[in-house]
């Protein structure tokens, strides 16, 4: 832990507009802190998250990517997160198969009311990625500078 404490991972969080982004706002409103390494990208729904975006983030040097959406059954668009769930299940299983550490990817369902969950999730996720250290397996060399 001691060495990695210094390591500031780059974390990209895709949050759906209706639940998780609002959950993140609530975490802010409640002053529930989480590491500044997390940067949120607002998407309308977790089903908007294309595997291309995730790989792109890794290509560009992200150390972890997390996708947050409404709880299954609560999707604003009624079914979006069900598709997202299947896509991410398969994609993450593939990344694991290719030797990308599981802890670098995560899906979490966070409702607009779960500011606490948002904050704890981000704390957990960041510390898990910190443990792993920098992502060396999926980055593009040309983006290292």
């Amino acid at each position, binding site marked *: 832990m001691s060495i990695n404490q210094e390591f500031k991972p780059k974390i990209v969080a895709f949050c759906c507009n209706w639940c998780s982004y609002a959950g993140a706002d609530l975490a802010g409103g409640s002053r529930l802190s989480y590491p500044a390494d997390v940067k949120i990208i607002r998407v309308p729904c977790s089903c908007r998250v294309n*595997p291309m975006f995730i790989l792109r983030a890794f290509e560009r040097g992200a150390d972890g990517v997390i996708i947050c959406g409404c709880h299954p059954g609560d999707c604003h668009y009624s079914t979006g997160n*069900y598709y997202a769930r299947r896509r991410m299940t398969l994609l993450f299983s*593939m990344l694991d*198969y*290719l030797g990308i550490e599981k802890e670098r990817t995560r*899906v979490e369902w966070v409702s607009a009311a779960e500011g606490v969950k948002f904050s704890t999730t981000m704390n957990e996720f960041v510390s898990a990625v910190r443990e792993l250290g920098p992502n060396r397996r999926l*980055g593009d*060399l040309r983006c290292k500078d």
Partner: protein
Amino acid sequence: MQRLIDRMKELLADGTVQRVLGWKQGDLGYNPEPHYFNSAEELDEFIYDGFCGANLSKYMIKGSELEGKTLVLLKPCDTYSFNQLIKEHRVDREKAYIIGVGCKGKLDIEKIKAQGIKGITAVKGAEISGDCDELTVETVYGEKKVAYKDAMLERCHVCKGKEHKIYDELLLDSVDTCDGDRFECVDELDSLTPEEKFNFFRKELSKCIRCNACRNVCPACSCRKCVFDSNKFDSAQKANVDPFEESMFHIIRAFHVAGRCTDCGECSRVCPQGIPLHLFNRKFIKDINEFYGEFIAGEDAETKGPLTDFTLDDIEPGERR
């Protein structure tokens, strides 16, 4: 095979079909090519033997645009691809007259060459009418014998079965060639450490020359313009500049065909660098089966694919069942 040729000539003669999509004899005994035969005379050059591995279903995308019906020869595994293409509105069932041809396992010339056999001038024993037991390879360095099984494509050892899923008529007999479990290779890789897995794939993918043979031969990769050739995602990279490039290409390609890939094995067959590309597709197929229930793409032309479907209590990402 004469039976097949006669039947094709009959169908050409009575106007049922305008042309035949089949294989034309090569000049080395092992290199037949996909070919449209427009007349009975042309069919003299027709061949169907152990080296006719090419999946002709994708050619029917273009075939569907031609005037009249095309007689297309599909092996059992090709029919899955054809169904999938129907499902995706990429081929026109009405434009195809499908003769389901039997299959006794298809051969991989690379496997013969890998046994140190060079200067091949002819291969005997690959005829579909034969026993398909032993191959006699004539070379400028002398005659060599190879067991048919040892020269078979990987995919034939894990064959889905010799049943045609769509056809107008069936001809020629098949022999069951399956003697392996197609997911064993996936299990083996899954049991490695992340480091080992990564090294394995990095080594294999580093060979990739981005020739797109895997993509262009793939019946599921039927996009008019591949996302890797367009600027939609800022992803049009022709070069294999960085190893990441290939990983990205192959992961996304596998993802795009996930739930649609019939495991026809063409990608691995055509890769000039011998990258076992089926390992990507098999992983998705295995996961889909495990997570969402057994699903065989192309078994019919109607069932919704697993990635355009869901159930309320699907497994969560990262979980295993």
